[in-house]
C-alpha cells in the first residue's frame, strides 16, 4: 500500500482504486452504449434496447447513488440512518413540484397556475412554498437544499447532544415516519395520498420521448459518477480518516481534539444531498412521487443494498444496489411470494456471514486463490528442486 497524501487532490481519487476505476469505466460505457442501442437500432433489431429497460437501469442508477450516500455515512462514519429515504423523497418532491408546474394549463382542469389536485381541493392560490418551482434552476437548488437543510437541522440537534447508535437509528426512523404521515395530509399541499404525477415534460422536452429518456439515463450515469468521485474525495482525505476514527472509536477522536459533531454533520448533510439528487433523477424516470417513498421500510431496504454490496466500500454500495434491485425486479415478477423471504433472508445472511458484503467475499476468495497459487508454486519449486 502506497501513501497518496502528497498527490494532487484529483489524482489521489482513483489511485489505489482499481475497482473504482473499473466501475467508472463500466458506467461510462453504459452511458454511451445503452442510449445508442435504444435510439439508433430499430425496435426489431437484436441490438435494440427497449426504453423500458433503459428506464429500469436508470432507476437502478438512482438507487446506486442513494446507496453511495448511505454508505458514506454508515460505512465510513458508522451512522446508521434509517431515514435516508426521506432525503431521497424530498429531492424527488422538489423535482416533482417543478414537473407539476411544467404541466401548466394542460391539466384536467386547465388551470395554468394551480396543479390539478389544488384545484380539486378548491384552493384559490398557490401556497408560498410552491413559488419558484416553475424555474428549473430554483427546483434544482431545492433538490439540494431541502434534504440538506433537514439533514442539517436534524443532524445538528442529534449530533450535538450525542445521540448515537441505535438511538440515532430510531429517531431517524421516527423522522421519516413523521414525514410520511405529514405528506399523506392533503393540507400539506403536496398532493396528499396520490402525490405528484401526470408529468408532461422537463425543460420543454416531453418525458414520453425516447430522447428525453436517454438524456435522463445519461444524467443518472453522470450523477453516479460525480457522486462517487465526491464521496471518494471525502473518504480519501484526512477528513475521511477522521470519519473512520469516529466510526471505530468516537471518544478517541474527541480526545484527539476533533469536533466529532461537526464532522458527522458535514458528512450527513453531504450524504442527504446526494440522496436528494438521486430522488430528483428518479422521479422523472418513474413518473410519480408519492408519500410511500417516505415509508420506513424503504429506508431500511437501502441499508441492505449497502450491506449486500459491502459496507465501507463505495463501489460495493453501487454493486449492492444494482444486484438487490435486479433481484427484486426479477423475483417480484416471477415469484412474488418468495421475495420477502429472500429479502429477509438477505438481511440475516449478510449480517451473520457477510459483514463485508459480496465485495468482501470476492476479496476473500481472491486472497485464498493467491495463497493457494503461492503454495502450489512453492510446492512446484521444491519438487523441481528435488528432481534436480
Amino acid at each position, binding site marked *: 500500500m502506497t501513501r497518496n497524501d502528497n498527490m494532487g487532490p484529483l489524482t489521489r481519487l482513483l489511485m489505489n482504486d482499481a475497482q473504482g476505476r473499473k466501475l467508472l469505466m463500466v458506467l461510462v460505457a453504459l452511458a454511451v452504449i445503452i442510449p445508442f442501442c435504444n435510439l439508433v437500432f430499430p425496435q426489431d433489431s437484436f441490438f435494440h434496447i427497449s426504453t423500458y429497460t433503459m428506464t429500469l437501469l436508470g432507476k437502478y442508477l438512482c438507487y446506486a447513488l442513494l446507496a453511495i450516500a448511505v454508505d458514506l455515512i454508515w460505512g465510513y462514519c458508522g451512522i446508521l440512518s434509517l431515514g435516508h429515504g426521506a432525503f431521497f423523497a424530498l429531492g424527488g418532491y422538489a423535482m416533482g413540484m417543478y414537473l407539476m408546474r411544467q404541466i401548466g394549463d394542460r391539466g384536467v382542469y386547465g388551470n395554468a397556475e394551480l396543479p390539478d389536485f389544488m384545484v380539486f381541493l378548491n384552493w384559490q392560490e398557490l401556497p408560498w412554498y410552491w413559488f419558484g418551482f416553475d424555474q428549473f434552476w430554483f427546483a434544482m437548488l431545492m433538490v439540494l437544499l431541502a434534504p440538506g437543510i433537514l439533514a442539517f437541522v436534524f443532524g445538528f440537534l442529534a449530533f450535538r447532544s450525542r445521540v448515537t447508535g441505535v438511538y440515532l437509528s430510531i429517531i431517524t426512523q421516527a423522522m421519516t415516519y413523521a414525514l410520511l404521515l405529514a405528506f399523506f395530509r392533503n393540507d400539506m399541499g403536496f398532493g396528499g395520498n396520490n402525490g405528484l404525477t401526470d408529468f408532461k415534460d422537463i425543460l420543454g422536452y416531453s418525458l414520453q420521448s425516447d430522447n428525453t429518456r436517454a438524456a435522463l439515463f445519461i444524467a443518472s450515469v453522470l450523477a453516479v459518477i460525480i457522486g462517487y468521485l465526491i464521496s471518494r474525495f471525502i473518504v480519501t482525505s484526512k*477528513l475521511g480518516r477522521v470519519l473512520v476514527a469516529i466510526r471505530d472509536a468516537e471518544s478517541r477522536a474527541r480526545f484527539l481534539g476533533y469536533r466529532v459533531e461537526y*464532522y458527522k454533520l458535514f458528512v450527513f448533510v453531504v450524504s442527504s444531498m446526494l440522496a436528494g439528487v438521486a430522488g430528483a433523477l428518479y422521479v422523472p424516470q418513474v413518473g410519480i412521487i408519492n408519500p410511500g417513498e417516505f415509508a420506513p421500510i424503504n429506508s431500511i431496504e437501502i441499508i441492505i443494498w449497502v450491506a449486500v454490496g459491502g459496507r465501507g466500500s463505495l463501489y460495493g454500495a453501487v454493486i449492492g444496489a444494482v444486484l438487490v434491485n435486479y433481484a427484486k425486479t426479477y423475483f417480484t415478477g416471477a415469484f412474488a411470494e418468495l421475495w420477502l423471504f429472500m429479502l429477509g433472508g438477505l438481511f440475516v445472511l449478510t449480517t451473520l456471514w457477510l459483514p463485508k458484503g459480496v465485495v468482501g467475499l470476492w476479496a476473500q476468495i481472491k486472497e485464498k486463490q493467491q495463497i493457494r497459487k503461492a503454495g502450489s508454486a512453492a510446492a512446484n519449486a521444491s519438487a523441481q528442486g528435488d528432481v534436480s
Partner: protein
Amino acid sequence: MSAIPKHIENPYVLYMDGVSVSFDGFKALNSLSLVIAPGEMRAIIGPNGAGKTTMMDVITGKTKPDSGTILFTDTHQQEYDLTRFDEADVANLGVGRKFQKPSVIESLTVFENLEMSLKGGRGLWAALVHKLTPERAAKLDEILDMIDLSDKRDWMAGSLSHGQKQWLEIGMLLGQEPDLLLIDEPAAGMTDEETMKTAELFKRLAQKHSLVVVEHDMDFIEALDCKVTVLHEGHVLAEGSLATVKANQQVIEVYLGR
C-alpha cells in the same frame, strides 16, 4: 475563552480544588484537590472505585463536576477553567489522554493513526484539503522511532499486539504535543521488559511535559520514581514519595493492607 485571575502563588499546570461528582447518590469524587506543577510527573494509585477514571473524566471535559474548580495553564501562561470546555476543546488546549483500554483506530494504519494525532488541522476544511508537509512527515518519523514502530508504519493498528497498541497510543499523545498528559494504566498487558521501557520513556517525556500516570503496577511506579498521590473514595488520602506513602498507616489500611 475566559482567563481567570491568577491567585495561586506557585506555578502549576493543573489545579483542582474541591471537585465533587456524584452518580445517583454515589460520590465518585468527594472534594478532590490536586496540584500538578509544570514538568512534574505524578503517579496516582488507589483501589478500584477510588475515582481515578472519574478524575480523568472531569479534567478532560467528559464529565461535568457538580462543584469545584479545575484550572489549567498552558505554555503561554494562559489560564483556563476546564469545567467550561468539552473533550475536543480540552484536547486542543493541550491536555492529552490515554485510556485504560488501548484505544487506537484499528482500521487505520499506524502511520495514519499518528498522522491524525498531529497537532493542528482540526477544522473540517483543513482536514478535507490536508496535505502532509515535509516537516510534519519528519515529526511523524521521529515519533515512530520513539515508540519503536517504524517497521510497522503501514500495518493496520488492529493487528498490533496489546503492548504495541499501548505504545501507539502514547505516540498519538506525543503527536498532539500536549502540555499535560493523563495516562491511565499504561503498563497493563505489557511484558516486564516493555514496562521498564515505558517507564524510561515517561521519564524522558517528563522533562518537556507534565504527566499524570494512574497505575496499579507497583514496580512500574517504583521505576517512575516520582511523587505519588493515593486516592480513596474520591478524595486524596495521602501524598508524597512512594516510600512515605507506603509507610502511611491509613494507606496500608485501605489499600496496601488488602
